[in-house]
Protein backbone atom coordinates (compact mmCIF):
# COMPACT_ATOMS: atom_id res chain seq x y z
CA UNK A 1 0.00 0.00 0.00
CA UNK A 2 1.48 3.37 -1.03
CA UNK A 3 1.94 6.08 1.58
CA UNK A 4 -0.73 8.29 0.05
CA UNK A 5 -3.15 5.37 -0.27
CA UNK A 6 -2.57 4.39 3.33
CA UNK A 7 -3.31 7.96 4.35
CA UNK A 8 -6.38 8.04 2.12
CA UNK A 9 -7.72 4.75 3.44
CA UNK A 10 -7.13 5.95 7.00
CA UNK A 11 -9.05 9.11 6.19
CA UNK A 12 -11.83 7.04 4.69
CA UNK A 13 -12.00 5.07 7.93
CA UNK A 14 -12.13 8.30 9.89
CA UNK A 15 -14.84 9.86 7.75
CA UNK A 16 -17.14 6.94 8.37
CA UNK A 17 -19.07 8.61 11.13
CA UNK A 18 -22.38 7.58 12.66
CA UNK A 19 -24.52 8.99 9.82
CA UNK A 20 -22.45 7.25 7.14
CA UNK A 21 -22.47 3.95 9.02
CA UNK A 22 -26.22 4.17 9.43
CA UNK A 23 -26.68 5.10 5.76
CA UNK A 24 -24.74 2.06 4.58
CA UNK A 25 -26.50 -0.17 7.07
CA UNK A 26 -29.93 1.07 6.03
CA UNK A 27 -29.47 1.07 2.24
CA UNK A 28 -32.10 -1.28 0.83
CA UNK A 29 -30.51 -1.49 -2.65
CA UNK A 30 -33.70 -0.25 -4.26
CA UNK A 31 -31.92 1.62 -7.03
CA UNK A 32 -34.14 4.68 -6.77
CA UNK A 33 -31.07 6.88 -6.52
CA UNK A 34 -30.10 5.75 -10.04
CA UNK A 35 -33.28 7.21 -11.48
CA UNK A 36 -32.60 10.44 -9.63
CA UNK A 37 -29.13 10.93 -11.16
CA UNK A 38 -28.90 12.58 -14.58
CA UNK A 39 -25.59 10.84 -15.29
CA UNK A 40 -27.40 7.51 -15.02
CA UNK A 41 -30.65 8.51 -16.72
CA UNK A 42 -28.88 10.08 -19.69
CA UNK A 43 -26.25 7.37 -20.25
CA UNK A 44 -28.07 4.28 -18.97
CA UNK A 45 -24.77 3.09 -17.51
CA UNK A 46 -25.35 1.46 -14.10
CA UNK A 47 -21.90 2.53 -12.89
CA UNK A 48 -23.40 6.01 -12.45
CA UNK A 49 -25.87 4.79 -9.82
CA UNK A 50 -25.13 7.18 -6.93
CA UNK A 51 -24.75 4.55 -4.22
CA UNK A 52 -22.40 2.57 -6.49
CA UNK A 53 -20.12 5.61 -6.69
CA UNK A 54 -19.42 4.93 -3.00
CA UNK A 55 -18.50 1.27 -3.37
CA UNK A 56 -14.88 1.53 -2.08
CA UNK A 57 -16.12 3.48 0.94
CA UNK A 58 -18.82 0.88 1.53
CA UNK A 59 -16.21 -1.89 1.50
CA UNK A 60 -14.06 -0.06 4.01
CA UNK A 61 -17.13 0.43 6.19
CA UNK A 62 -17.94 -3.27 5.97
CA UNK A 63 -14.37 -4.44 6.61
CA UNK A 64 -13.74 -2.09 9.50
CA UNK A 65 -17.08 -1.63 11.18
CA UNK A 66 -19.11 -4.83 10.78
CA UNK A 67 -18.44 -8.15 12.48
CA UNK A 68 -18.80 -10.23 9.33
CA UNK A 69 -16.60 -7.83 7.39
CA UNK A 70 -13.90 -7.91 10.06
CA UNK A 71 -13.95 -11.70 10.10
CA UNK A 72 -13.69 -11.83 6.32
CA UNK A 73 -10.76 -9.41 6.45
CA UNK A 74 -9.12 -11.51 9.17
CA UNK A 75 -9.18 -14.69 7.13
CA UNK A 76 -8.20 -12.94 3.91
CA UNK A 77 -11.57 -13.06 2.19
CA UNK A 78 -12.07 -9.30 2.01
CA UNK A 79 -10.98 -7.40 -1.06
CA UNK A 80 -8.78 -4.47 -0.04
CA UNK A 81 -9.23 -1.04 -1.58
CA UNK A 82 -6.35 -0.30 -3.94
CA UNK A 83 -4.80 2.71 -5.61
CA UNK A 84 -5.92 1.46 -9.02
CA UNK A 85 -9.47 1.13 -7.81
CA UNK A 86 -9.56 4.64 -6.36
CA UNK A 87 -8.11 5.98 -9.61
CA UNK A 88 -10.89 4.21 -11.50
CA UNK A 89 -13.43 5.70 -9.08
CA UNK A 90 -12.19 9.25 -9.66
CA UNK A 91 -14.51 9.61 -12.64
CA UNK A 92 -17.46 8.44 -10.57
CA UNK A 93 -16.77 10.57 -7.52
CA UNK A 94 -15.87 13.79 -9.33
CA UNK A 95 -16.70 13.84 -13.08
CA UNK A 96 -20.11 12.25 -12.74
CA UNK A 97 -21.31 13.79 -9.50
CA UNK A 98 -22.30 17.43 -9.28
CA UNK A 99 -23.28 17.11 -5.61
CA UNK A 100 -26.76 18.11 -6.78
CA UNK A 101 -28.38 16.05 -3.97
CA UNK A 102 -31.30 14.81 -6.02
CA UNK A 103 -30.34 11.27 -4.97
CA UNK A 104 -30.34 12.31 -1.30
CA UNK A 105 -33.80 13.77 -1.64
CA UNK A 106 -35.29 10.75 -3.35
CA UNK A 107 -33.74 8.04 -1.15
CA UNK A 108 -36.67 6.26 0.57
CA UNK A 109 -34.68 5.54 3.73
CA UNK A 110 -33.33 9.07 3.98
CA UNK A 111 -29.69 8.42 3.17
CA UNK A 112 -27.85 11.66 2.43
CA UNK A 113 -25.82 10.22 -0.43
CA UNK A 114 -24.22 13.57 -1.24
CA UNK A 115 -22.93 13.82 2.30
CA UNK A 116 -21.32 10.44 1.72
CA UNK A 117 -19.83 11.51 -1.61
CA UNK A 118 -18.34 14.59 -0.02
CA UNK A 119 -16.78 12.50 2.73
CA UNK A 120 -15.48 10.07 0.12
CA UNK A 121 -13.91 12.99 -1.74
CA UNK A 122 -11.93 13.81 1.41
CA UNK A 123 -10.26 10.42 1.25
CA UNK A 124 -9.81 10.65 -2.51
CA UNK A 125 -8.07 14.01 -2.18
CA UNK A 126 -5.74 12.80 0.55
CA UNK A 127 -4.85 9.63 -1.35
CA UNK A 128 -3.94 11.66 -4.43
CA UNK A 129 -6.96 10.80 -6.54
CA UNK A 130 -8.64 14.16 -6.87
CA UNK A 131 -8.70 15.66 -10.39
CA UNK A 132 -5.75 17.90 -11.13
CA UNK A 133 -8.03 20.68 -12.39
CA UNK A 134 -9.91 21.01 -9.07
CA UNK A 135 -6.68 20.72 -7.09
CA UNK A 136 -5.26 23.62 -9.10
CA UNK A 137 -8.41 25.67 -8.57
CA UNK A 138 -8.11 25.10 -4.82
CA UNK A 139 -4.39 25.95 -4.86
CA UNK A 140 -5.12 29.22 -6.65
CA UNK A 141 -7.85 30.03 -4.11
CA UNK A 142 -5.43 29.54 -1.24
CA UNK A 143 -2.49 31.33 -2.86
CA UNK A 144 -4.24 34.07 -4.81
CA UNK A 145 -7.70 34.26 -3.28
CA UNK A 146 -9.66 33.04 -6.30
CA UNK A 147 -10.02 29.63 -7.99
CA UNK A 148 -9.64 31.34 -11.33
CA UNK A 149 -6.68 33.49 -10.35
CA UNK A 150 -8.57 36.76 -10.09
CA UNK A 151 -6.67 39.38 -8.09
CA UNK A 152 -7.85 42.62 -6.50
CA UNK A 153 -6.67 44.84 -9.41
CA UNK A 154 -9.00 42.89 -11.71
CA UNK A 155 -11.88 43.47 -9.30
CA UNK A 156 -11.02 47.16 -9.18
CA UNK A 157 -10.97 47.26 -12.96
CA UNK A 158 -14.48 45.84 -13.05
CA UNK A 159 -15.56 48.29 -10.38
CA UNK A 160 -14.28 51.12 -12.56
CA UNK A 161 -16.04 49.72 -15.60
CA UNK A 162 -19.31 49.48 -13.69
CA UNK A 163 -18.98 52.97 -12.30
CA UNK A 164 -18.67 54.20 -15.88
CA UNK A 165 -21.52 52.05 -17.10
CA UNK A 166 -23.99 52.99 -14.36
CA UNK A 167 -22.68 56.24 -12.93
CA UNK A 168 -22.87 54.59 -9.50
CA UNK A 169 -20.06 54.12 -7.02
CA UNK A 170 -19.05 50.59 -6.04
CA UNK A 171 -17.93 50.87 -2.40
CA UNK A 172 -14.85 49.00 -1.22
CA UNK A 173 -13.98 48.32 2.43
CA UNK A 174 -16.73 50.55 3.84
CA UNK A 175 -16.75 49.77 7.55
CA UNK A 176 -20.22 49.58 9.08
CA UNK A 177 -22.03 48.93 5.80
CA UNK A 178 -25.17 46.85 6.21
CA UNK A 179 -24.32 44.39 3.45
CA UNK A 180 -21.03 42.89 2.32
CA UNK A 181 -21.40 41.65 -1.24
CA UNK A 182 -19.38 38.66 -2.36
CA UNK A 183 -18.71 37.76 -5.97
CA UNK A 184 -17.77 34.58 -7.71
CA UNK A 185 -14.76 34.79 -10.01
CA UNK A 186 -17.16 33.95 -12.81
CA UNK A 187 -19.00 37.19 -12.21
CA UNK A 188 -15.78 39.16 -12.17
CA UNK A 189 -14.53 37.57 -15.37
CA UNK A 190 -17.60 36.75 -17.42
CA UNK A 191 -20.60 38.57 -15.99
CA UNK A 192 -19.77 42.09 -14.79
CA UNK A 193 -23.46 42.89 -15.28
CA UNK A 194 -24.14 41.17 -11.94
CA UNK A 195 -22.19 43.76 -9.96
CA UNK A 196 -23.74 46.47 -12.06
CA UNK A 197 -27.20 45.15 -11.12
CA UNK A 198 -26.28 45.09 -7.43
CA UNK A 199 -25.17 48.73 -7.57
CA UNK A 200 -28.50 49.76 -9.11
CA UNK A 201 -30.63 47.69 -6.73
CA UNK A 202 -28.83 48.85 -3.59
CA UNK A 203 -29.15 52.44 -4.75
CA UNK A 204 -32.91 52.07 -5.16
CA UNK A 205 -33.29 50.21 -1.86
CA UNK A 206 -31.27 52.87 -0.06
CA UNK A 207 -29.05 50.27 1.56
CA UNK A 208 -25.38 50.65 2.43
CA UNK A 209 -23.14 47.95 0.99
CA UNK A 210 -19.53 47.21 0.27
CA UNK A 211 -17.10 44.85 -1.35
CA UNK A 212 -14.20 43.64 0.77
CA UNK A 213 -10.66 43.87 -0.56
CA UNK A 214 -9.52 40.83 1.41
CA UNK A 215 -12.61 38.70 0.78
CA UNK A 216 -14.30 39.42 -2.53
CA UNK A 217 -14.42 35.78 -3.63
CA UNK A 218 -17.34 33.61 -2.53
CA UNK A 219 -16.62 30.22 -4.06
CA UNK A 220 -15.02 27.44 -2.05
CA UNK A 221 -13.25 24.81 -4.11
CA UNK A 222 -11.93 23.30 -0.87
CA UNK A 223 -15.43 21.90 -0.40
CA UNK A 224 -15.56 20.63 -3.97
CA UNK A 225 -12.22 18.86 -3.91
CA UNK A 226 -12.87 17.52 -0.42
CA UNK A 227 -10.22 19.11 1.80
CA UNK A 228 -11.86 20.54 4.90
CA UNK A 229 -8.72 22.29 6.14
CA UNK A 230 -8.50 24.33 2.96
CA UNK A 231 -12.25 24.92 2.91
CA UNK A 232 -11.87 26.35 6.41
CA UNK A 233 -9.10 28.73 5.29
CA UNK A 234 -11.31 29.99 2.47
CA UNK A 235 -14.36 30.49 4.71
CA UNK A 236 -12.22 32.15 7.39
CA UNK A 237 -11.16 34.85 4.94
CA UNK A 238 -14.79 35.84 4.44
CA UNK A 239 -15.51 35.70 8.17
CA UNK A 240 -12.46 37.85 8.94
CA UNK A 241 -13.43 40.36 6.26
CA UNK A 242 -17.05 40.58 7.39
CA UNK A 243 -16.09 40.98 11.05
CA UNK A 244 -13.42 43.57 10.23
CA UNK A 245 -15.97 45.64 8.32
CA UNK A 246 -18.64 45.01 10.98
CA UNK A 247 -21.34 44.22 8.41
CA UNK A 248 -24.72 42.83 9.37
CA UNK A 249 -25.24 40.56 6.38
CA UNK A 250 -22.98 38.86 3.86
CA UNK A 251 -24.62 38.32 0.47
CA UNK A 252 -23.71 35.15 -1.35
CA UNK A 253 -23.72 35.81 -5.10
CA UNK A 254 -25.44 33.98 -7.93
CA UNK A 255 -23.42 30.83 -7.26
CA UNK A 256 -24.93 27.68 -5.80
CA UNK A 257 -21.98 26.03 -4.13
CA UNK A 258 -20.68 29.27 -2.66
CA UNK A 259 -23.99 29.58 -0.85
CA UNK A 260 -23.87 26.05 0.55
CA UNK A 261 -20.23 26.40 1.58
CA UNK A 262 -20.67 29.72 3.32
CA UNK A 263 -24.13 29.41 4.80
CA UNK A 264 -24.30 25.76 5.84
CA UNK A 265 -20.73 24.46 6.02
CA UNK A 266 -18.97 27.61 7.16
CA UNK A 267 -19.88 27.74 10.85
CA UNK A 268 -19.05 24.04 11.23
CA UNK A 269 -15.73 24.55 9.48
CA UNK A 270 -14.66 27.42 11.75
CA UNK A 271 -16.23 25.87 14.84
CA UNK A 272 -18.43 28.77 15.92
CA UNK A 273 -21.48 30.74 14.82
CA UNK A 274 -21.04 33.79 12.62
CA UNK A 275 -21.47 37.28 14.01
CA UNK A 276 -23.35 38.18 10.84
CA UNK A 277 -26.14 36.76 8.73
CA UNK A 278 -25.59 35.03 5.38
CA UNK A 279 -28.18 35.30 2.63
CA UNK A 280 -28.27 34.43 -1.03
CA UNK A 281 -28.87 37.42 -3.27
CA UNK A 282 -32.32 36.08 -4.19
CA UNK A 283 -33.30 35.98 -0.52
CA UNK A 284 -32.15 39.58 -0.17
CA UNK A 285 -34.06 40.70 -3.26
CA UNK A 286 -37.25 39.03 -2.10
CA UNK A 287 -36.83 40.60 1.32
CA UNK A 288 -36.44 44.02 -0.31
CA UNK A 289 -39.59 43.33 -2.30
CA UNK A 290 -41.54 42.40 0.82
CA UNK A 291 -40.31 45.56 2.56
CA UNK A 292 -41.37 47.73 -0.39
CA UNK A 293 -37.75 48.56 -1.21
CA UNK A 294 -37.72 46.86 -4.61
CA UNK A 295 -39.94 48.72 -7.02
CA UNK A 296 -40.14 47.50 -10.59
CA UNK A 297 -41.92 48.66 -13.69
CA UNK A 298 -42.78 46.98 -16.97
CA UNK A 299 -42.75 43.31 -17.87
CA UNK A 300 -40.78 40.96 -20.04
CA UNK A 301 -43.21 39.89 -22.72
CA UNK A 302 -41.41 36.79 -23.98
CA UNK A 303 -41.72 33.29 -22.58
CA UNK A 304 -39.32 32.87 -19.65
CA UNK A 305 -38.46 29.87 -17.56
CA UNK A 306 -36.30 29.52 -14.45
CA UNK A 307 -33.54 26.99 -13.91
CA UNK A 308 -33.21 26.24 -10.19
CA UNK A 309 -29.60 25.95 -9.02
CA UNK A 310 -29.46 22.67 -7.06
CA UNK A 311 -27.74 24.11 -4.01
CA UNK A 312 -30.36 26.81 -3.64
CA UNK A 313 -33.41 24.60 -3.81
CA UNK A 314 -32.28 21.31 -2.33
CA UNK A 315 -29.75 22.54 0.22
CA UNK A 316 -31.09 26.00 0.89
CA UNK A 317 -34.84 25.84 0.38
CA UNK A 318 -34.73 28.97 -1.78
CA UNK A 319 -37.66 27.92 -3.96
CA UNK A 320 -40.42 30.49 -3.72
CA UNK A 321 -38.24 33.60 -3.79
CA UNK A 322 -37.10 33.28 -7.42
CA UNK A 323 -40.66 32.57 -8.52
CA UNK A 324 -42.02 35.59 -6.72
CA UNK A 325 -39.28 37.71 -8.29
CA UNK A 326 -39.88 36.25 -11.75
CA UNK A 327 -43.57 37.07 -11.57
CA UNK A 328 -42.66 40.62 -10.63
CA UNK A 329 -41.13 41.22 -14.06
CA UNK A 330 -42.33 38.41 -16.36
CA UNK A 331 -45.82 38.17 -17.85
CA UNK A 332 -45.20 34.81 -19.45
CA UNK A 333 -43.35 32.70 -16.89
CA UNK A 334 -43.46 28.94 -17.45
CA UNK A 335 -42.13 26.15 -15.28
CA UNK A 336 -40.08 23.33 -16.70
CA UNK A 337 -41.09 19.79 -15.68
CA UNK A 338 -39.83 18.90 -12.19
CA UNK A 339 -39.40 22.49 -11.00
CA UNK A 340 -38.17 23.63 -7.62
CA UNK A 341 -36.70 21.09 -5.26
CA UNK A 342 -36.81 18.28 -7.83
CA UNK A 343 -35.19 20.29 -10.62
CA UNK A 344 -32.51 18.59 -12.68
CA UNK A 345 -28.94 19.82 -12.42
CA UNK A 346 -27.32 21.65 -15.35
CA UNK A 347 -24.53 19.06 -15.11
CA UNK A 348 -21.74 21.46 -14.19
CA UNK A 349 -21.88 21.71 -10.39
CA UNK A 350 -19.66 20.25 -7.69
CA UNK A 351 -16.49 21.21 -9.54
CA UNK A 352 -17.25 19.20 -12.67
CA UNK A 353 -17.20 22.24 -14.91
CA UNK A 354 -13.55 22.77 -13.94
CA UNK A 355 -12.61 19.26 -15.05
CA UNK A 356 -11.46 19.31 -18.65
CA UNK A 357 -11.96 15.61 -19.33
CA UNK A 358 -15.50 15.66 -17.92
CA UNK A 359 -16.84 17.74 -20.80
CA UNK A 360 -18.18 14.93 -22.99
CA UNK A 361 -20.02 13.34 -20.09
CA UNK A 362 -21.36 16.74 -19.03
CA UNK A 363 -22.80 17.30 -22.50
CA UNK A 364 -24.34 13.84 -22.46
CA UNK A 365 -25.97 14.62 -19.12
CA UNK A 366 -27.25 17.90 -20.55
CA UNK A 367 -29.79 15.94 -22.57
CA UNK A 368 -31.99 15.99 -19.49
CA UNK A 369 -32.05 19.77 -19.42
CA UNK A 370 -32.58 19.74 -23.17
CA UNK A 371 -35.71 17.60 -22.80
CA UNK A 372 -36.97 19.83 -19.97
CA UNK A 373 -36.59 22.84 -22.24
CA UNK A 374 -38.17 21.12 -25.21
CA UNK A 375 -41.23 20.48 -23.06
CA UNK A 376 -41.90 24.18 -22.50
CA UNK A 377 -40.05 25.88 -25.37
CA UNK A 378 -39.06 29.10 -23.60
CA UNK A 379 -37.72 32.15 -25.43
CA UNK A 380 -35.17 32.72 -22.66
CA UNK A 381 -33.97 30.96 -19.55
CA UNK A 382 -33.27 32.73 -16.28
CA UNK A 383 -31.10 31.33 -13.50
CA UNK A 384 -29.26 32.45 -10.38
CA UNK A 385 -25.87 30.75 -10.57
CA UNK A 386 -23.00 31.86 -12.81
CA UNK A 387 -21.71 28.31 -13.11
CA UNK A 388 -25.13 27.01 -14.14
CA UNK A 389 -25.27 29.85 -16.62
CA UNK A 390 -22.04 28.90 -18.39
CA UNK A 391 -22.90 25.20 -18.34
CA UNK A 392 -26.33 25.94 -19.79
CA UNK A 393 -24.82 28.16 -22.48
CA UNK A 394 -22.35 25.43 -23.34
CA UNK A 395 -25.06 22.76 -23.58
CA UNK A 396 -27.44 24.95 -25.55
CA UNK A 397 -24.69 25.80 -28.00
CA UNK A 398 -23.74 22.14 -28.36
CA UNK A 399 -27.32 21.10 -29.10
CA UNK A 400 -27.97 24.15 -31.29
CA UNK A 401 -30.78 25.49 -29.13
CA UNK A 402 -31.24 29.21 -29.44
CA UNK A 403 -32.27 30.10 -25.89
CA UNK A 404 -30.42 33.02 -24.29
CA UNK A 405 -29.55 32.60 -20.60
CA UNK A 406 -29.65 35.52 -18.18
CA UNK A 407 -29.20 36.07 -14.45
CA UNK A 408 -32.28 36.88 -12.36
CA UNK A 409 -30.58 39.71 -10.48
CA UNK A 410 -29.80 41.54 -13.71
CA UNK A 411 -33.33 40.95 -15.05
CA UNK A 412 -34.69 42.57 -11.89
CA UNK A 413 -32.23 45.46 -12.21
CA UNK A 414 -33.38 46.10 -15.77
CA UNK A 415 -36.92 46.64 -14.47
CA UNK A 416 -36.17 48.93 -11.56
CA UNK A 417 -38.66 51.78 -11.48
CA UNK A 418 -36.97 54.97 -12.59
CA UNK A 419 -37.47 58.12 -10.51
CA UNK A 420 -39.77 60.66 -12.22
CA UNK A 421 -36.82 63.02 -12.72
CA UNK A 422 -34.83 60.38 -14.59
CA UNK A 423 -37.81 59.57 -16.81
CA UNK A 424 -38.23 63.16 -17.88
Amino acid at each position, binding site marked *: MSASLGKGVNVLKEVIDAPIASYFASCVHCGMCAEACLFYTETGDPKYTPIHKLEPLRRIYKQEFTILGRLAKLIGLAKAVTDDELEEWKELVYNSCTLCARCSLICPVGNDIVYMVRKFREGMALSGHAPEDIIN*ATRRTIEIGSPMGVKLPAVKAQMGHIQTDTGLQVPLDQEGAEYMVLLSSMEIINFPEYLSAIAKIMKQAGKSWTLCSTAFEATNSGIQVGVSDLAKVIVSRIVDGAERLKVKTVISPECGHAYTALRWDGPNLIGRPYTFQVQHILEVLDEFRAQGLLKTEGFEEDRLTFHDPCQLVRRGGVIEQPRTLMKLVAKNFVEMPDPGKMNWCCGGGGGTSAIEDAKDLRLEAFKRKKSQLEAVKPDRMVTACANCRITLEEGLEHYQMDIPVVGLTEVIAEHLAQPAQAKS
Partner: protein
Amino acid sequence: MAISNDNEFKTALNKLTVAQQRQVASRFVGNVLPLCKDARVSGAVTAARREDITDSELAALFQAAKSASVESFTQCGREADWLAQAGHFVAEAAMACVKAAEAGDNLAWDAGMSARMARTCETIAGGAGTENQEADAQYRILTEFLKQ
Protein backbone atom coordinates in the same frame (compact mmCIF):
# COMPACT_ATOMS: atom_id res chain seq x y z
CA MET B 1 -18.96 69.29 -30.83
CA ALA B 2 -16.29 66.99 -29.43
CA ILE B 3 -17.64 64.35 -27.07
CA SER B 4 -15.70 64.26 -23.83
CA ASN B 5 -17.66 62.29 -21.27
CA ASP B 6 -20.05 59.36 -20.98
CA ASN B 7 -23.16 61.48 -20.51
CA GLU B 8 -22.58 63.24 -23.82
CA PHE B 9 -21.55 59.92 -25.33
CA LYS B 10 -24.74 58.11 -24.31
CA THR B 11 -26.97 61.03 -25.25
CA ALA B 12 -25.44 61.22 -28.71
CA LEU B 13 -25.76 57.47 -29.23
CA ASN B 14 -29.41 57.55 -28.19
CA LYS B 15 -30.16 59.98 -31.01
CA LEU B 16 -28.84 57.63 -33.70
CA THR B 17 -31.01 55.39 -35.81
CA VAL B 18 -30.52 51.64 -35.48
CA ALA B 19 -28.60 51.56 -38.78
CA GLN B 20 -26.32 54.34 -37.58
CA GLN B 21 -25.84 52.56 -34.27
CA ARG B 22 -24.63 49.47 -36.09
CA GLN B 23 -22.19 51.62 -38.05
CA VAL B 24 -20.78 53.21 -34.91
CA ALA B 25 -20.82 49.93 -32.98
CA SER B 26 -18.77 48.25 -35.65
CA ARG B 27 -16.21 51.06 -35.43
CA PHE B 28 -16.00 50.67 -31.65
CA VAL B 29 -15.43 46.95 -32.03
CA GLY B 30 -12.99 47.52 -34.87
CA ASN B 31 -10.78 49.38 -32.44
CA VAL B 32 -10.36 46.28 -30.26
CA LEU B 33 -10.69 43.67 -33.00
CA PRO B 34 -6.98 42.68 -32.87
CA LEU B 35 -7.76 41.17 -29.44
CA CYS B 36 -9.89 38.47 -31.05
CA LYS B 37 -8.65 36.01 -33.63
CA ASP B 38 -12.03 34.47 -34.40
CA ALA B 39 -13.06 34.94 -38.04
CA ARG B 40 -16.76 34.74 -37.09
CA VAL B 41 -16.31 37.86 -35.00
CA SER B 42 -14.44 39.89 -37.60
CA GLY B 43 -16.98 38.76 -40.20
CA ALA B 44 -19.87 40.05 -38.12
CA VAL B 45 -18.16 43.37 -37.46
CA THR B 46 -17.35 43.93 -41.12
CA ALA B 47 -20.84 42.98 -42.26
CA ALA B 48 -22.47 45.30 -39.71
CA ARG B 49 -21.11 48.27 -41.68
CA ARG B 50 -23.06 47.33 -44.78
CA GLU B 51 -26.10 49.52 -45.24
CA ASP B 52 -27.93 46.89 -47.32
CA ILE B 53 -27.63 44.11 -44.73
CA THR B 54 -30.82 42.04 -44.41
CA ASP B 55 -32.54 40.74 -41.28
CA SER B 56 -31.74 37.14 -42.17
CA GLU B 57 -28.08 38.02 -42.63
CA LEU B 58 -28.08 39.74 -39.26
CA ALA B 59 -29.63 36.69 -37.62
CA ALA B 60 -26.99 34.37 -39.09
CA LEU B 61 -24.16 36.71 -38.15
CA PHE B 62 -25.54 37.07 -34.62
CA GLN B 63 -25.64 33.31 -34.22
CA ALA B 64 -22.05 33.00 -35.42
CA ALA B 65 -20.83 35.73 -33.07
CA LYS B 66 -22.76 34.16 -30.23
CA SER B 67 -21.10 30.80 -30.86
CA ALA B 68 -17.73 32.53 -30.70
CA SER B 69 -18.75 34.18 -27.45
CA VAL B 70 -19.99 30.97 -25.79
CA GLU B 71 -16.91 29.03 -26.86
CA SER B 72 -14.63 31.65 -25.33
CA PHE B 73 -16.26 31.82 -21.87
CA THR B 74 -13.82 31.04 -19.07
CA GLN B 75 -15.22 27.94 -17.37
CA CYS B 76 -15.80 27.97 -13.63
CA GLY B 77 -12.66 26.94 -11.77
CA ARG B 78 -10.31 27.30 -14.74
CA GLU B 79 -7.45 29.75 -14.52
CA ALA B 80 -8.38 33.02 -16.15
CA ASP B 81 -6.50 33.83 -19.33
CA TRP B 82 -7.21 37.54 -19.52
CA LEU B 83 -6.09 37.87 -23.13
CA ALA B 84 -8.47 35.09 -24.16
CA GLN B 85 -11.13 36.76 -22.05
CA ALA B 86 -10.50 40.00 -23.96
CA GLY B 87 -11.35 38.02 -27.09
CA HIS B 88 -14.56 36.86 -25.43
CA PHE B 89 -15.67 40.42 -24.81
CA VAL B 90 -14.82 41.39 -28.39
CA ALA B 91 -17.20 38.60 -29.45
CA GLU B 92 -19.82 40.00 -27.06
CA ALA B 93 -19.33 43.43 -28.60
CA ALA B 94 -19.69 41.96 -32.09
CA MET B 95 -22.99 40.39 -31.04
CA ALA B 96 -24.30 43.87 -30.21
CA CYS B 97 -23.35 45.04 -33.73
CA VAL B 98 -25.59 42.49 -35.42
CA LYS B 99 -28.29 41.98 -32.81
CA ALA B 100 -31.92 42.35 -33.89
CA ALA B 101 -32.83 45.67 -32.29
CA GLU B 102 -35.76 45.97 -29.92
CA ALA B 103 -37.32 49.11 -28.51
CA GLY B 104 -35.08 50.69 -25.92
CA ASP B 105 -31.92 48.97 -27.14
CA ASN B 106 -28.79 51.01 -27.52
CA LEU B 107 -26.67 48.67 -29.61
CA ALA B 108 -23.75 51.04 -29.92
CA TRP B 109 -23.60 51.64 -26.16
CA ASP B 110 -23.67 47.87 -25.51
CA ALA B 111 -20.94 47.30 -28.09
CA GLY B 112 -18.93 50.14 -26.60
CA MET B 113 -19.15 48.78 -23.06
CA SER B 114 -18.10 45.29 -24.14
CA ALA B 115 -15.24 46.77 -26.15
CA ARG B 116 -14.10 48.62 -23.03
CA MET B 117 -14.30 45.35 -21.09
CA ALA B 118 -12.10 43.75 -23.73
CA ARG B 119 -9.52 46.49 -23.32
CA THR B 120 -9.74 46.20 -19.53
CA CYS B 121 -9.02 42.47 -19.80
CA GLU B 122 -6.02 43.24 -22.02
CA THR B 123 -4.60 45.65 -19.46
CA ILE B 124 -5.14 43.13 -16.66
CA ALA B 125 -3.31 40.53 -18.75
CA GLY B 126 -0.46 42.95 -19.30
CA GLY B 127 -0.20 43.62 -15.59
CA ALA B 128 0.27 47.29 -16.39
CA GLY B 129 -2.59 48.56 -14.27
CA THR B 130 -6.23 48.70 -15.12
CA GLU B 131 -6.64 52.19 -16.49
CA ASN B 132 -7.20 52.34 -20.20
CA GLN B 133 -8.06 54.91 -22.82
CA GLU B 134 -10.76 53.00 -24.67
CA ALA B 135 -13.48 55.40 -23.55
CA ASP B 136 -11.51 58.34 -24.98
CA ALA B 137 -10.97 56.41 -28.21
CA GLN B 138 -14.72 55.82 -28.45
CA TYR B 139 -15.45 59.50 -27.85
CA ARG B 140 -13.15 60.32 -30.80
CA ILE B 141 -14.72 57.65 -33.00
CA LEU B 142 -18.23 58.93 -32.30
CA THR B 143 -17.21 62.57 -32.77
CA GLU B 144 -15.73 61.73 -36.17
CA PHE B 145 -18.81 59.73 -37.15
CA LEU B 146 -21.14 62.58 -36.27
CA LYS B 147 -19.13 64.96 -38.44
CA GLN B 148 -19.74 62.81 -41.53
